[in-house]
């Protein structure tokens, strides 16, 4: 509360102190389950606070409500963690101010991605699923150090972030970047706190990875080149928008205006050339920032895998998980169905999802959940895969990430389920419990999990993500009530 001079005069007060009301908010429930409690802003004032949970709501588009009689499997879907090296010279944060499609090149809370993933792992551990699906875009910029931190946070271990040296330092005079020491909401010392090592307990159960575009491409769009590799491990960073660099309204990053195709080489190269010719900042070089090849990334994500990350696994006796790798190798963030994938999927469905094929309970075939990073519906060639799923009676859900949005839609006999990211608001993972229902049907109980990092760093990240005018709040990434905590019924 501040008092103007004139008010002070009138009230006869010579001087009144402005009383700042520092809030020491609770970090919320330790479990992270939004069934018990979740973060909300009922007044719409831009300030999140822990509030009541959201109960499960029945969705019956694919079948009536039926009593359940047993759990088939429990899963957690955590996607788009985008663990990133905010000090990396390979980043291009100055593009953020140009708006779409560069909004993801800088985020106010980007120094806290490791802590958020560790907080999500903690919430998942508290939930205790049978398996965890890591839905892709585990990292942000295809860097080796990012993957090291992310895997430690997710699987358990000591995460040792680098000392921060980037655009959010108080010494950087560029007002387009949020500087926590100076700008509102002020968090003095946040950058050094974010750089401190921390230990993550991990999810404590097997993790099944999905390949995302950011896991193998620079900024999720660009195939690493000699220039980008040199930039990543070098000692010169680009913090400032090169003079005269602009993006005319309506400019598309991809050919033909497609949001998902490979980026226009001319546009990317031109941007890069002009950026490199612009002002640069000297930063500490770090060889651990090496940009990985696809094979390297896949090999680290799933031991023994190479080439692609298409695979299938059983979860318990009655559920089969089929993972599809839609990441483009030639650049571009959108999903791409390779020519061989429809055949491979058809064979997996025929082999694993048919009655008696794999000793399913009671001679019934296993239920099938298909997982990809990009939604099948928006992927190039995705319709061919969807038509296969449409035709198969045991497919109950297709899980995806990439859009950073909570969304659940019925399609044919199964549910298309998209889970929000950990990088943008609402920074949630998804819990799924697959249940048998009377009459031979199935129900999926699903609810969101808020990350629950010990201390206040996770809460700060969530609040900053909420305020972000380019982030998930204005874009409605949290989804509607029916996209979050619901029970999805399906007949036999």
């Amino acid at each position, binding site marked *: 509360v501040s008092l103007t001079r*004139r008010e002070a005069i009138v009230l*006869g007060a010579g001087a009144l102190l402005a009383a700042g009301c520092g809030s020491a908010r609770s970090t919320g429930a330790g479990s992270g389950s939004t069934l018990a409690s979740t973060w909300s802003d009922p007044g719409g*004032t*831009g300030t999140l606070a822990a509030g009541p949970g959201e109960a499960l709501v029945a969705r019956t588009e694919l079948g009536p409500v039926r009593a359940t009689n047993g759990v088939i499997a429990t899963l957690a879907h955590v996607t788009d963690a985008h663990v990133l090296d905010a000090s990396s010279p390979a980043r291009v944060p100055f593009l953020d101010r140009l*708006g779409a499609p560069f909004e993801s090149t800088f985020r106010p809370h980007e120094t806290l991605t490791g802590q958020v993933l560790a907080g999500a792992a903690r919430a998942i551990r508290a939930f205790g699923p049978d398996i965890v699906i890591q839905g892709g875009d585990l990292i942000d910029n295809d860097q080796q150090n990012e993957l090291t931190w992310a895997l430690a946070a997710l699987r358990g271990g000591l995460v040792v972030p680098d000392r921060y040296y980037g655009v959010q330092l108080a010494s950087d005079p560029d*007002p387009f970047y949020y500087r926590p020491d100076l700008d*509102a*909401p002020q968090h003095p010392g946040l950058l050094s706190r974010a750089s401190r090592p921390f230990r993550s307990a991990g999810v404590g159960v097997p993790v099944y990875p999905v390949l995302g575009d950011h896991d193998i491409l620079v900024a999720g769009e660009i195939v690493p080149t000699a220039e980008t590799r040199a930039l990543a491990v070098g000692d010169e960073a680009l913090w400032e928008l090169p003079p005269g660099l602009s993006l005319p309204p309506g400019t598309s990053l991809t050919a033909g205006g497609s949001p998902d195709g490979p980026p226009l080489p001319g546009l990317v190269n031109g941007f890069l050339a002009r950026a490199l010719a612009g002002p640069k900042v000297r930063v500490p070089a770090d060889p651990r920032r090496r940009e990985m090849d696809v094979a390297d990334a896949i090999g680290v994500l799933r031991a023994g895998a190479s080439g692609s990350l298409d695979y299938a696994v059983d979860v318990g006796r009655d559920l089969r998980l089929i993972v599809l790798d839609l990441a483009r190798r030639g650049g571009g963030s959108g999903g791409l169905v390779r020519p061989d994938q429809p055949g491979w999927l058809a064979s997996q469905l025929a082999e694993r999802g048919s009655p008696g094929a794999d000793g399913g309970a009671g001679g019934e075939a296993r239920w099938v959940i298909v997982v990809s990073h990009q939604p099948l519906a928006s992927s190039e060639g995705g319709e061919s895969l969807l038509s296969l799923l449409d035709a198969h009676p045991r497919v109950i859900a297709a899980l995806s990430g990439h859009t950073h949005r909570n969304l659940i839609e019925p399609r044919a006999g199964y549910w298309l389920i998209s889970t929000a990211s950990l990088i943008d608001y609402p920074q949630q993972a998804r819990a799924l419990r697959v249940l048998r229902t009377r009459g031979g049907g199935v129900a999926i109980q699903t609810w969101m999990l808020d990350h629950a990092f010990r201390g206040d760093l996770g809460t700060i990240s969530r609040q900053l993500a909420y305020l972000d005018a380019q982030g998930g709040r*204005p874009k409605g990434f949290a989804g509607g009530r029916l996209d979050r905590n619901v029970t999805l019924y399906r007949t036999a």
Partner: protein
Amino acid sequence: MLVAALVVSDSLGFGFDRAARASDLPDIIVRFDPQSASRVAQRIAALPDVAADTVRTEVTDVGLETADEFAGDGSVEVVGQGRRGYAIVSGRDVTRPGQVVVERGLADAWHLSLGGALQIDGLGTERIVGFSESPDNVSYPLAVPRVYVSDRGTGPLAADLAEIWLRDPRNLNEVLVQARATSYGLQGLRFVTRSGVRVLLDQAAGIVIDLLVALSLIALATASVMLAASARAEVQRRLAAIGVRRAVGASRAHLAGTQAFEALFVAAPAATVGAIGGVLATYGPTTRLLTLLNEPAPGTALLPALAAAWVAAIAIPVLAAAWPAWRASGRPPVALLRGAELGASARRSTRLSAPRAGLTVLGARLVGARRTRLVATVAALGFSTAFVLLMLALASALSSLETDPQALGKHYQLTANLPASAVPRVRRIPGVQAVAPRYEEEAVDSYSLGETIDVIAYPGSHTVFEAPPLVSGTRLRGDGEAEVGLGLAQALGLSPGSTLAIQLESGRELRLRVAGVVSSLDHDGRVAYVPAATLLAADPSAAGDEHLAVVLRPGANVAAVSTALGSTSAPATGAIGRGVPLVAVLRSILRAVAIVDGLVCLYALIQACALTVQERRRTVSVLRAFGAGGAAVRRLLAGAVIALVVPAAVIGILLERLVLGPALSRLAASYVTLPLGASSSEIAAVLAGLVLAGATAVAWVARQTTRESVIEGMRAP
């Protein structure tokens, strides 16, 4: 006086807040170069905490015309749906093309009426449907004339103004940071918050209002002292009667109650008359001042405060009468009765005062015999004297601020709207001592985006052209340094050595080390002097506002130099830029308050003289019986007046110079030292006024006294 002070302080002190509430003033006003309205609306929609917003077009430099008036610099705001940010004070809002709402200040100045016609260039003749008020700027003629028209039928227009209302204004800084982060591509971007609006208003009128409000507070205190002193003197006069009543068994409570009741009997009608008089004297001028500021008159909102003042005006004398009566009645009746008459020495002196000059001394001693009353009356007169001196000093200070650039530390006398390349040519003009380009830009603090900063830059040393007194630190010496005004230093917590971060209109941020803090009145002291090279490097567009500052040689012919500079030259301005009407209104208010105060002085003197004569009726009658005429009585009373006026004058002068002047300066503008010490001529004028008041009191009381027969006076108790 109490009510007059209250009217002024309440009306002006809370005027902005009242206006902000009435007009639904937005929390953030954003101005930018013309943009697609939908693009701007999209960005606003992404901001947190936004309760409502409106995106509109403000067309400037539009010709407005009636049959009798014309202005070529009108501002036309094209409004659409949603919240307005202005209050309709008469008539109604625009609903369709062909209608116009006119700002009340303009309506008053041009004598416009509802239903009348206003010619707007580009739109044609519009019918006036309402008058508005909005405190986001001062009103015409302090600012450009402003009107509002409906956007229906005007076709697609690019927006250049957005107004944003927040759900929780405490999150203002968070919202501004997000707005800034998403503002890339919006040229000429300027955020103004409510506090920023207040600062903008203060540029035009703030110091005037602050001085008036501070003056009113001092008047309140002075009036209270005078009321109390007057009531106490009345009790003192009645000590003998109190002693008699006490002797016949009256209780202390009864005596105090009686005294209080009698005071009430006098104070209630007096307070009523005084309240009405105070309101009549000040409400009109104050309302005119508020209209200029686009702020509403308090109206009925003033009634509770007036009622409180009325009660106070009664309660103070009642308590001031009851308390001394209560205390006095605690003394033995004998002591009271003894104390009711002059002491023996005074009586001896009276008998010995035969010489003509001795009558004056006798008068002084008669007044001096009542020490408590003497002190109270001298105090009242002293406060009044100090107050009048303060008003004169204030008027001088305002006049100086209005007209004298030196008051701002400006050493240049002329400006010329010429490019830097014209410097050599201007330097050769006879009478020119120094000339340099001067750059001025309105910026905001990078971290508190609502805090506006007036950035001023010169190549080389600015002290040749502007040198506000240095309060702390040093003058700026390098490219990375700045001198900041004390107002800015106080607002942002800056001191020499700290970092000033300002966001320029170009969107770039400038980081400068604060070299020194200066005392400046410009822009409420929220100024920063920076090197021109630094400013231009960060914002080359600042060169677009380039003009030359010209310092003349002592004795140079200003008119001749101005003519040589051509039509682009203009005299340097004072702190109250276009404030001529404002100062005129202020003079009305000061005059009203001064008259009230003068009447108070006169009343105090007449009362003191009348009381003295009343108590000394027998003494005066004895003198008259021995042949003393009217002149002798006047000499006697003159002695009494001198005994009151001389110490009061000394006290008043000292009080004004040592206490009230500095206090007013501090209250009104903590960021600068205002010259509020009364000058010799002002002191002489006030002393003359006191002499005149004293002479009037002597003449009036002497006339009343000599009307009474000597015999009747001798019979007095």
